[in-house]
């Protein structure tokens, strides 16, 4: 390559505009990458999306599904964090019942594993319940409304990841629950790799939020 060799687009004349667009897009992508990895941007977004938790007495603690379980029956990191957070809320006496959601069939693997874990850690069997089958957060909200409203349960502590909370809170409120948000730790990671992973999750969640709004589910 010679000293004055232009980039691909400039060399090919008519394709210069496309190449320029690609360079702008590439620069923007690298800027986002750098800001995401080396600044607290993702953590700040995490905190902002979590909103203010309301850890007050409720009728039930609802733990949303997240990530399922591996083939060897181990809960994913997010699922386990939510489960442990729910157990902490229960131990603090904020609600007499924990409802674990998760799984496409009644008693799906994620919810079943979470319930086993809770019972194994000393929560009475009658204080642990497995939610109905659900594919999406909206399905979870509708299924739990159908099951819990009939028993007079409307005031719930909702356990979800911070970034999931705006959509989850909205869709549960929409089906008639009084939602007390109980997000898992919202401070966010401090390592570049984990920050980028969080940034990716935030991007996906924002797309989900837009989809739910367009579908009229919020």
């Amino acid at each position, binding site marked *: *390559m*010679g*000293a*004055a*060799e*232009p*980039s*691909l*687009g*400039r060399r*090919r004349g008519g394709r210069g505009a496309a*190449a320029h*667009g*690609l*360079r*702008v*897009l*590439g*620069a*923007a*992508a*690298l800027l986002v990458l750098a800001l995401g*990895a*080396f600044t607290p941007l993702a953590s700040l977004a995490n905190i902002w999306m979590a909103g203010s938790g309301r850890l007050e007495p409720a009728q039930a603690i609802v733990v949303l599904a997240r990530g399922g379980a591996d083939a060897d029956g181990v809960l994913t990191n997010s699922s386990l964090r939510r489960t442990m957070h729910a157990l902490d809320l229960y131990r603090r006496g904020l609600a007499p019942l924990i409802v674990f959601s998760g799984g*496409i069939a009644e008693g799906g693997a994620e919810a079943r594993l979470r319930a086993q874990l809770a019972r194994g850690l000393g929560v009475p069997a009658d204080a642990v319940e497995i939610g109905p089958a659900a*594919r999406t957060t909206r399905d979870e909200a509708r299924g739990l409304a159908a099951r819990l409203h009939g028993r007079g349960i409307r005031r719930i502590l909702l356990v979800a990841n911070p970034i999931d909370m705006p959509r989850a809170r909205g869709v549960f409120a929409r089906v008639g629950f009084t939602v007390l948000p109980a997000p898992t730790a919202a401070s966010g990671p*401090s*390592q*570049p790799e984990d920050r980028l*992973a969080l940034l*990716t*999750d935030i*991007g*996906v969640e924002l*797309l*989900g939020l837009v989809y739910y709004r367009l579908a009229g589910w919020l």
Partner: protein
Amino acid sequence: MRSLVVLALVVATSLAAVAIGARGLGLDRRALRGAGARALEWAGLATLFLAANVAVGALVILALRALTGASISVYLASDRVLVLLSALQATIFQAWRASRP
């Protein structure tokens, strides 16, 4: 701390590469600007491939859900391996573009 270490590593190896390229391989330092522009084009292409992969994946999943009722997580379309594969797609596509006479 870890961020600083990562940045310091990249800066150090980049400076070493420039020194080796210029002195050891006889490369022209003025060509670095063009190389940087091509790298930005590559990054832009990779971003486009990633956006296309995620969008197409999400649409296919939503269509399958609607048509078959199957339970398929939309998160499948956001697997982080897609970033690496999109970068590979961009590398091949850019080399292909460069081969055009």
